[in-house]
């Protein structure tokens, strides 16, 4: 009885500190900010936040957002829980091993934090369409994959609406992205179409370390060379499990096989240091995770989500690096938008055509009009989620196959209103996007 009362009191005072930020003006509040008790209500009742990843960063993100007052949270993750996660992914227990991370994380938060509701999706982010992503106000990422980051970046950029070349700001869904690597981390705010995006700064991601194949094959010096030898050369040759079976880094049978063969290889060359753990690390390309770095980066990300959702404070502009390997170093700066970024510099230009226009007429517009003056445009459309090559100037083998398209009409090619056509030409450093608009 007493316990229940104590709990109630504690929950009752729950928003005192958040209210101070939302119901009073202050030196750091946004110029447009109007202090009001409605802001907290809006945050709790309306704002839908998508968290991508329920791993080291994801657990922190969900906990922080839930405790901050967001109640409508959604989490996507395609992984299941492994024993090695438990030291830092604190929403999981030993009994949960093997279950989907998203599901267990959602269960834990829903049970522990009153009024918070987390919806989980045990999926890849690529399983969902634009309608799904459009339904969120904000997306926060705690991912360790560059491919996934590039994908969500592309998705949010594709949701932007333009009217007469002007961005409709209500179509902007901010992306708050966190990343960690050992004692280093970064947090950034991306306003798709307005600030630099993932693709603008692709060279900030460290390149994957690839050893020369001949070193791996004949002159290994490191334990990693031995593991890579098994992974790249021995596995496809011996197909130890079945023909064409790719390596599954989560399958202990696969890892044990690789580990044993790598040990043998290492012994042959007098190399020491091949362990099961290292094997797992090399095969899965694991970078050791540090719980405290995750906590700091997730906190920074969630603070930004709070600022963006409430306008209580101007958001970070726009990239923060953090390093606690030797003391603490942190620095925030504005990562600039790249003028010729393939992803975000593109405002799809309207291409006004009639259904009876032939592809060669469209190409003539691109080459002859003063506006474009292209030389050898290559055109590829995106139809029903699939790429469709319309015409390419090179190489000869493909040009021949596509040449009949030149005589086909817009209608025959299936180019409907709103379909995007990517046009590549030597006159532009990156592919340019057009959006088909049919003449009425």
């Amino acid at each position, binding site marked *: 009885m007493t316990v229940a009362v104590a709990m109630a009191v504690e929950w009752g005072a729950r928003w005192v500190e958040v209210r101070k930020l939302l119901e009073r003006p202050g030196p750091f509040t*946004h110029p447009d900010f109007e202090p009001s008790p409605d*802001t907290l209500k*809006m945050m709790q009742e*309306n*704002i*839908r936040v998508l968290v991508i990843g329920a791993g080291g960063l994801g657990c922190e993100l969900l906990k922080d957002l839930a405790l901050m007052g967001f109640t409508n949270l*959604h989490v996507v993750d395609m992984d299941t829980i492994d024993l090695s996660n438990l030291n830092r992914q604190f929403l999981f227990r030993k009994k949960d091993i093997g279950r989907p991370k998203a599901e267990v994380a959602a269960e834990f938060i829903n049970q522990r934090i009153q009024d918070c509701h987390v919806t989980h999706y045990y999926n890849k982010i690529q*399983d969902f*369409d*634009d*309608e*799904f992503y459009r339904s*969120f*106000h904000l997306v926060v990422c705690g991912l360790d994959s*560059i*491919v996934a980051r*590039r*994908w969500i970046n*592309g*998705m949010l*950029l594709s949701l932007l609406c333009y009217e007469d070349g002007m961005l409709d*700001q209500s179509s*902007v869904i*901010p992306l708050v992205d966190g990343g960690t690597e050992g004692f280093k981390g970064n947090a950034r705010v991306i306003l798709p179409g307005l600030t630099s995006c993932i693709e603008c700064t*692709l060279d900030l*991601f460290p*390149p994957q370390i*690839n*050893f*020369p*194949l*001949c070193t791996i*094959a*004949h002159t290994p010096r490191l334990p990693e060379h031995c593991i890579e030898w098994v992974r790249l050369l021995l596995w*496809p040759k011996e197909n130890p499990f079945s023909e064409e079976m790719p390596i599954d880094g989560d399958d202990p049978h696969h890892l044990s096989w690789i580990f044993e063969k790598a040990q043998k290889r290492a012994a042959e060359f007098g190399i020491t240091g091949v362990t099961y753990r290292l094997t797992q690390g090399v095969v899965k390309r694991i970078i050791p995770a540090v719980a405290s770095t995750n906590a700091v980066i997730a906190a920074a990300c969630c603070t930004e989500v709070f600022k*963006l959702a409430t*306008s209580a404070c101007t958001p970070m502009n726009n990239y923060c690096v953090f390093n606690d390997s030797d003391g603490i170093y942190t620095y925030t700066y504005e990562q600039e938008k790249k003028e010729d970024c393939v992803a975000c510099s593109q405002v799809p230009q309207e291409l006004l055509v009639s259904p009876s226009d032939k592809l060669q007429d469209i190409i003539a517009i691109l080459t002859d009009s003063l506006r474009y003056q292209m030389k*050898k445009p*290559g055109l*590829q459309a*995106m139809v*029903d*989620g699939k*790429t*469709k*090559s319309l015409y*390419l*100037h*090179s*190489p*000869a*083998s*493909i040009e021949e*196959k596509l040449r009949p398209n030149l005589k086909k009409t817009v209608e025959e090619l299936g180019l409907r209103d709103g379909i*995007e056509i*990517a046009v*590549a030409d*030597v006159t532009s450093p*990156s*592919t340019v996007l057009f959006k088909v608009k049919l003449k009425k």
Partner: protein
Amino acid sequence: MIKLFSMKNQKKDGSDAPKQGSQKRASAAQLRITKDINELTLPKTCDTEFPDPDDLLTFKLIICPDEGFYRGGRFVFSFKVGPNYPHEPPKVKCETMVYHPNIDLEGNVCLNILREDWKPVLTINSIVYGLQYLFLEPNPEDPLNKEAAEVLQNNRRLFEQNVVKSMKGGYIGNVYFDRCLK
């Protein structure tokens, strides 16, 4: 700085049921490969084959050297461009069994720009020229086929004979090579 949310347009109804989806825009990797392919300038010794012209991510490159040890031969390489292109290089394998110091019998190719020296500014064209160069100047310093490399280093005449023999179809040591003359 824009104010992203006005209190009025707050309602977003997402139906929580996930739909099998796809992006309506081509991915950055696709946009880039379209440009790479449209601007491909092949040397006269090279040709390509696209099994599906709508899919520019999977194709074959055929090299028919007209000089050097391998003149008269025909060598097929498969290219697979992944979703992380150009952050990561494409995967390239030699489908023709070839007696070559830098290509092993499983078709793995030792070319620096395919692995350790890959940079996103490089293009499919750079790889085509890199592969063509491998046939003009096989490099015994970075061997994948160690036997072939040793022969090239110690006895160029014998190496040349072995290459011709292998391209006509025949045994080198106890390895059989299929005929791959043009």
